């Protein structure tokens, strides 16, 4: 895989989420991008169970268990600012057994679904972020396959993002700055999605009608 940038696209004024997504995908198609199937990234939040916490008023850490259709055989378990574990999909079953330590937060499941687009060596995924029944925002993921070092190709990625996001072009993702010339990996993408989901959770809810 290559270097990936995940960002949020604000809903256009006076438009629904779906209409904004259509605007964006039309722009991509005009650029010459070709549709290539669909994608899905989901995330579930777990707390540390109260019984395992010490008596000195420790607060429980949050753990996120995520899946990415790009890696159908893997499951990602992340802590905020913490390590990222990449496991087989069996990990979900293990989480059920660990109920005594990690408890699933109620109605915490958030996911993004949409279409994959291929343009030259770029892979673009525009998705609608939903939480329960409501559409909460738009995610834009751009992957540049040939390059493996984030700092090498950020300027190039930025130029590409500008070509279809215009004024909504994001800044460099925080994970890009972490390690200077380390090889970019799938976990870095999942961290970006986790951060995006957390940001969207805190944002105001968009009316349900927007989902269609």
């Amino acid at each position, binding site marked *: *895989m*290559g270097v990936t940038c995940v960002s949020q696209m604000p809903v256009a004024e006076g438009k629904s989420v779906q209409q904004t997504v259509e605007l964006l995908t039309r722009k991509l198609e005009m650029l*010459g991008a070709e549709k290539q199937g669909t994608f899905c990234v989901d995330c579930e939040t777990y707390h540390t169970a109260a019984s395992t916490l010490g008596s000195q008023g420790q607060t429980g850490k949050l753990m996120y268990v995520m899946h990415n259709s790009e890696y159908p055989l893997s499951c990602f378990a992340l802590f905020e600012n913490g390590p990222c574990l990449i496991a087989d999909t069996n990990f979900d079953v293990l989480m059920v057994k660990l109920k005594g330590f990690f408890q699933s937060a109620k109605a915490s499941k958030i996911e993004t679904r949409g279409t994959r687009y291929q*343009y*030259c*060596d*770029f892979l673009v995924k525009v998705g609608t972020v939903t939480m329960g029944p409501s559409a909460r925002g738009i995610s834009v993921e751009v992957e*540049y*396959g*040939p*390059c*493996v*070092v984030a700092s*090498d*190709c950020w*300027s*190039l990625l930025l*130029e*590409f993002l500008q*070509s279809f996001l215009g004024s909504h072009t994001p800044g460099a993702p925080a994970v890009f700055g972490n390690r200077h*010339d380390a*090889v970019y990996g799938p976990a870095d993408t999942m961290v970006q999605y986790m951060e995006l989901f957390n940001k969207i959770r805190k944002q105001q809810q968009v009316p349900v009608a927007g989902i269609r």
Partner: protein
Amino acid sequence: MADVINVSVNLEAFSQAISAIQALRSSVSRVFDCLKDGMRNKETLEGREKAFIAHFQDNLHSVNRDLNELERLSNLVGKPSENHPLHNSGLLSLDPVQDKTPLYSQLLQAYKWSNKLQYHAGLASGLLNQQSLKRSANQMGVSAKRRPKAQPTTLVLPPQYVDDVISRIDRMFPEMSIHLSRPNGTSAMLLVTLGKVLKVIVVMRSLFIDRTIVKGYNENVYTEDGKLDIWSKSNYQVFQKVTDHATTALLHYQLPQMPDVVVRSFMTWLRSYIKLFQAPCQRCGKFLQDGLPPTWRDFRTLEAFHDTCRQ
């Protein structure tokens, strides 16, 4: 108009000249007739001698007169073939039996062909002269005694020599690592890894580079049985493009008598791809054109250009 007049005047002069030649011939033959007949039909010897000399003198005078006339006419006739680019051979075009003897058209073709040959030879010599300049510029820093002198021997260099040249190049560029293997007998194969940008498979024959394939840093370069995969191309368009350019570079860096210099020049050129994703195009100033970064590197300056932005 002027041409037509010119031609008619010339033709008239021609016919006059022809009759002048006939007159000259007959006067010359009269001289010899007179000499052959000798002195006769006169009573006295003195009379005979006198008459013969007078006769002979007359004949010579007429030869002289006819000759002068011919000379005068020949000046009028001029040189008809002078303006023709093929000079006298242009007269072949006047041959009426074209079908039987297509000499003139064949001649024209040969002329064109030799003209072209001369032109191309001129270009080739210009290019070869450039090469020789480059060679002398590159000679510094190469130990002269190691370089093979004779041309045929460069194809049968000992493997140890090839190893030496490659390992010297490997040490020259810290961001480039070269792994040499010989899976198929004596011919070496190199796996060049350039930073964290790309990998290049180089197939050698002695010290000549036969083939190169450029792939991404994260792409597999081995076949299932663990050998270097010298046939499949990269999955990414950017590296397919760089592969094309690298093949062009192999044709550009040619110096049959000093293969080690060629390999070194090629590797120096290849090394400029360390900034493949970081260098904007030197012409349009952008990173992307049709979704591709500047994939071309100038052979001399090593500057980055888009394929369509290079001169």
